[in-house]
């Protein structure tokens, strides 16, 4: 297969970027989009040109490292699919493939297609954890979790934190990511101790990072390689309202959050 690849090139965080077009040949239909870029990079290296920088790690759709906007869609046109799992057979042979980095003020471009998703790490650090006593591991069945609750929490925990929700959102909102994390912990017994604090802090950090607000377009759910539902966002809103109310009550009781 042959492609005309139109790709975003930017030499550094503060450099001015622009699109460059490259012709690549000899692409197998079984190759992933990233492997197509590998072929392109080999070609560029041989020509003495700087290869295209992009993120990838596991290349099996579970790590959340890769993430490109392909033909205007985060992770490409396939539903529930990461960029690394996007096969070239889904593209028209001889056609143009447009590749851009995730675009958001909170995801600044480092180089070419690589963006800094540190904002997600800071949101996680603000409350995306559970505090447990260190020491020997507790007995596996000491804390009981009903099967249906475990399943629900797992649906939210499937989030790999790739940032496609932000990239796809017309407002560059991080609501789907943050809501998946808040929902997952709010369902499990281990997450109860910090439940209110977590909702307040993670949402607070999300707002502070400068992500946009949510307009309920649900484009994030379509872009999510793990199919995380926007019902997580509804849950996050409930959790936040509940936490804001309880925080108020505790402050009155002299406790505080």
């Amino acid at each position, binding site marked *: 297969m042959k492609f005309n690849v139109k790709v975003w090139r930017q030499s550094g965080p503060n450099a001015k970027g622009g*699109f460059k077009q490259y012709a690549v040949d000899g692409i197998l239909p079984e190759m992933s989009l990233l492997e197509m870029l590998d072929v392109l990079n080999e070609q560029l290296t041989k020509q003495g040109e700087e290869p295209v920088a992009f993120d990838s790690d596991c290349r099996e759709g579970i790590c959340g490292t890769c993430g490109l906007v392909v033909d*205007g869609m985060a992770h490409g046109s396939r*539903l529930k699919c990461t960029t690394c799992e996007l096969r070239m057979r889904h593209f028209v042979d001889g056609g143009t493939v447009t590749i851009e980095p995730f675009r958001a003020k909170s995801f600044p471009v480092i180089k070419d297609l690589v963006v800094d998703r540190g904002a997600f790490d800071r949101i996680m650090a603000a409350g995306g954890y559970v505090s447990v006593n260190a020491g020997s591991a507790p007995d596996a069945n000491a804390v009981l979790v009903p099967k249906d609750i475990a399943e629900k929490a797992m649906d939210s925990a499937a989030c790999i934190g790739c940032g496609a929700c932000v990239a796809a959102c017309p407002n560059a909102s991080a609501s789907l990511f943050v809501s998946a994390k808040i929902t997952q912990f709010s369902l499990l017994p281990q997450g109860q101790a910090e439940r209110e604090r977590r909702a307040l802090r993670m949402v607070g950090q999300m707002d502070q990072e400068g992500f946009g607000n949510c307009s*309920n377009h649900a484009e994030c*759910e379509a872009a999510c390689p793990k199919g995380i539902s926007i*019902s997580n966002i509804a849950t996050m*809103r409930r959790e936040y309202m509940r936490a804001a109310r309880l925080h108020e009550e505790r402050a009155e009781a002299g406790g505080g959050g």
Partner: protein
Amino acid sequence: MSKPCFLSSTIGRKVIAAISGLALVGFIVVHLAGNLTLLLPDGGAAFNAYAHKLASLGPLLWVARAGLLIFFLAHVLLAIGVRLDEKRARPDGYALKASKGGPSKQTLSSRSMLVTGLVILLFIPFHVWMFTLNKGTPHAMVEVHGTLVKDVYLAVVTAFKDPVKAWSYVAVMLLLGFHLRHGFWSAFQSLGVLRPKWTPALYTVAFVFAALMAVGFIALPVYMLYFGPNPETLRVAVAGH
């Protein structure tokens, strides 16, 4: 930790947008129900009685008007805020942008909320000018059930005999339908009341609701333009009954 400010958070602002939006939806439903009395073949008696009832609420009417104004302002300001956030959160846009389909609810309706909302915002002063303040429309009094009331029916009939006014109303009401198509279900999602099972159902209900509201409001000017009584002979005919 510092005191969280619910109202300035992204979630708090969505909650206010949703509550004010639903309050305005309530107003629209009542407004349409009242307006539909225009279609009764009674020479406007029911409609004038309804208008008179509203006007004679006295201070209560002003409370309702103040409430409406507050909800309206809150809704508009928050909507503009969301749009400004959007520009700030993504200063550099994409060269290519497409919806992935599937579970996405990104539609012309969801993308044009600000535009449709602003058109409705601009429309309201004209609407109030024409029918509430009765400017540019004929003034008359008419007897309904033994009391002399303002003939709002005559004002409506006269205004909608003008094709420009009638079709402008149709256009704005079509945009209202678009606004409600996304706004109605979106309000429930913003309030966090949607369970996964309910989302598809409510999304469909929102479409039906928006279509009903648009058709209802559009039917009135179209009916008056083509099938409505002639305002010149209207009161003569009523008197002749």
